[in-house]
């Protein structure tokens, strides 16, 4: 399983997301390294189809496909926690559930 964390340094949420992702991988028993991919320009954001930082991809697929089609750019991504509140990082339960789904489909 290829796990990528795409990030931009204008948004400080990636270390928290990296820690959450590492914990989720461990709790789901997934043996995979996290590839950190820094996005540094709008051109690169468009090429990588980067909807904002942080973005988690497994085998090339965004584990949380954006509901709205935003322009690909250097921006911070808005996630929703399970109680509906906006957040700079994915809900930890949603992250574990997404990993389970991806793991089961392999």
């Amino acid at each position, binding site marked *: 399983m290829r796990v990528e964390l795409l990030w931009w340094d204008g948004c400080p949420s990636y270390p928290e997301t990296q820690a959450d992702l590492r914990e989720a991988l461990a709790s789901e028993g997934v043996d995979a390294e996290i590839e950190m991919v820094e996005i540094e320009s709008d051109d690169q954001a468009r090429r990588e189809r980067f909807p904002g930082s942080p973005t988690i991809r497994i085998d090339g697929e965004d584990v949380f496909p954006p509901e709205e089609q935003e322009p690909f750019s250097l921006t911070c991504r808005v*996630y929703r926690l399970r109680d509906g*509140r*906006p957040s700079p990082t994915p809900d930890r339960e949603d992250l574990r559930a997404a990993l389970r789904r991806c793991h089961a489909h392999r």
Partner: protein
Amino acid sequence: MRIGDKAASFSLPDTDGQERGPDGVTVVVFTCNHCPYALAWHDRLTQVAEDYEVTFLAVNPNDAERYPRDSFDAMKERVEADGGWPYPYLRDASQEVARAYGAQTTPDVFVLDAERILCYRGAPDADHRDEGQRAVWLREALDAVLAGDEPQRPETEPVGCSIKWSR
């Protein structure tokens, strides 16, 4: 701008077309529409504005050309969609106010006393995820300033999205 410095006055348009600026004890929060940190802290900051009788100003300085969700029109739409805010939402199109204050992130909170002396600068509280924090650092600073004291914690690290400066 450092703690103890006199902050610049300013006059910026709000979403109702009125010019606003610091007046008496004032909270200036640099914020925006698109940043998840600003959104995560928004309700807590709004509650502070409702709980304290001070001037409370939200200022959006982001470059709207690269971030259209922070345009003046988008700001007006957001306030209208929310049924109005209990404080004005100002547009800093030239980014001069954000530069004068040395704002770095959204949100970035500044508390000025009645003489416009900077008494607190930083984050609303320690954790954007924890609503129970209730913007406590800002509340502590306001409690001190309104009592004529200096905040015990005058400065914290602002946490949020970088301000989107025009190129």
